[in-house]
């Protein structure tokens, strides 16, 4: 191949071509799997609802029962369990309270069972389940961890890094092609290779922005467990050590969930809401304190703050913002799965995923076809 003005391609171009070819080829098979599982995960809310994993939302009610009533209902129905977390999502699940329970004495969030109550009646709903017991939970474990736990997340980050290299080097490799072929034109009638190459470059140019976002966020999410552990041992660990005190009974803390809710809300800026309450005695709280997550709207909706509420006195002990790396990972989640903009955004995500799936396969075919034709020429030359 010759470069500009018929000259041989530059070293910069050749280096990028090499990077584009090999980074893509190494990532091809895992990336195909990520695209396939990712397509299903875009619609995880709809699939979970259709499979009865999440109950239908009754809508907001003016007469919500106290949170403590829901907690008591769940504890009465499951005496060998304790509540680890309570979640309130007025946007996606209005009128429902999500309770994550775990066996008494256990603190591991990976072993929690999700239960739901109606906020208006504090009645326990039939639907309950472990996240890894659902179809989307299974696919998420494959997509995010390759069934290898936190090590698998790092493998995912490595694949994302390879794809990122492939995208950026692909932009460099694209330049000579753009000088020869008009945007959206396919050189038909001159063999399948040129048509596939034009398709590859055209679709690659169209999905580049989306692919950069999804790949970069996928890379960051690969460090999710590592960052959470770092945060739990670092900033959160320091707060936990600073506010040690006599532990409370994690099944029945003296101050109930409503007390913690009110105290955290009073310490948050006006207009903010409580989204989650971690019970005393979990990895993300202390033996004496609730950790209440509060957020606002717009950018503040994603960048929540943690409020430590004393479960014995009901007073706020400390308020902490997330460290920058936790903020980056928190923001990465919706940007990666595209589940924050309703059906139109999900359809855009699906279209881009399928187009990316196509150029991944067709890129591998282009490499294989070139290799095959070179071998054939070599055989003909030596014959």
């Amino acid at each position, binding site marked *: 191949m010759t470069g500009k003005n018929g000259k041989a391609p530059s070293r910069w171009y050749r280096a990028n071509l090499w990077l584009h070819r090999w980074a893509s080829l190494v990532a091809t098979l895992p990336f195909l799997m990520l695209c396939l599982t990712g397509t299903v995960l875009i619609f995880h809310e709809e699939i979970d609802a259709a499979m009865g994993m999440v109950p239908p939302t009754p809508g907001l009610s003016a007469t919500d029962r106290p949170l403590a009533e829901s907690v008591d209902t769940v504890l009465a129905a499951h005496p060998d369990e304790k509540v680890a977390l309570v979640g309130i999502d007025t946007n996606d699940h209005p009128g429902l309270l999500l309770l994550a329970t775990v066996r008494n004495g256990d603190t591991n969030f990976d072993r929690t069972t999700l239960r739901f109550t109606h906020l208006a009646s504090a009645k326990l709903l039939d639907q309950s389940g472990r996240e890894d017991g659902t179809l989307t939970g299974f696919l998420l474990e494959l997509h995010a961890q390759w069934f290898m736990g936190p090590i698998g997340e790092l493998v995912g980050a490595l694949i994302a890094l390879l794809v990122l290299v492939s995208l950026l080097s692909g*932009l460099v490799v694209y330049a000579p*092609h753009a000088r020869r072929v008009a*945007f959206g*034109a396919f050189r038909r009638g001159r063999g399948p290779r040129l048509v596939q190459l034009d398709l590859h470059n055209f679709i690659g*140019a169209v999905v*580049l*922005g989306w692919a950069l976002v999804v790949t970069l966020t996928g890379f960051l999410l690969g460090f999710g467990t590592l960052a959470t552990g770092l945060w739990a041992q670092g900033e959160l660990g320091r707060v936990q050590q600073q506010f040690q005190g006599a532990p409370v009974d994690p099944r029945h803390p003296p101050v109930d969930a409503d007390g913690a809710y009110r105290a955290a809300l009073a310490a948050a800026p006006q207009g903010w809401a409580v989204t989650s309450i971690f019970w005393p005695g979990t990895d993300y709280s202390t033996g004496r304190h609730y950790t209440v997550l509060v957020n606002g709207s717009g950018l503040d909706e994603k960048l929540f703050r943690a409020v430590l509420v004393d479960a014995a006195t009901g007073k706020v002990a400390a308020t902490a913002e997330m460290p920058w790396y936790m903020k980056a990972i928190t923001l990465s989640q919706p940007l990666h799965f595209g589940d*924050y903009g309703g059906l139109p955004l999900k359809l855009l995500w699906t279209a881009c995923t399928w187009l990316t799936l196509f150029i991944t396969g067709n890129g591998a075919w282009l490499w294989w076809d070139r290799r095959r034709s070179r071998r054939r020429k070599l055989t003909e030359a030596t014959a």
Partner: protein
Amino acid sequence: MMRGWPRGRIALLALVSITGIVGMLLGDGAWDWLFLALAALPLLIGGAALAARHVRAAILKRCDNHPAGDY
């Protein structure tokens, strides 16, 4: 031969798409449609380019097949 889209224009289109994707997450709900349009702009432009080529090819084909061409 017609020149294709240079690298800078493709990078700019990618940046517009990224702005739409991030803007939709962080921006006010009232701007969602604008941000969605920005996010989908590369696809729309790509689709428009393909459609334009098809129309152009169809017109040229009809011109080629026109009886006046025999004279």
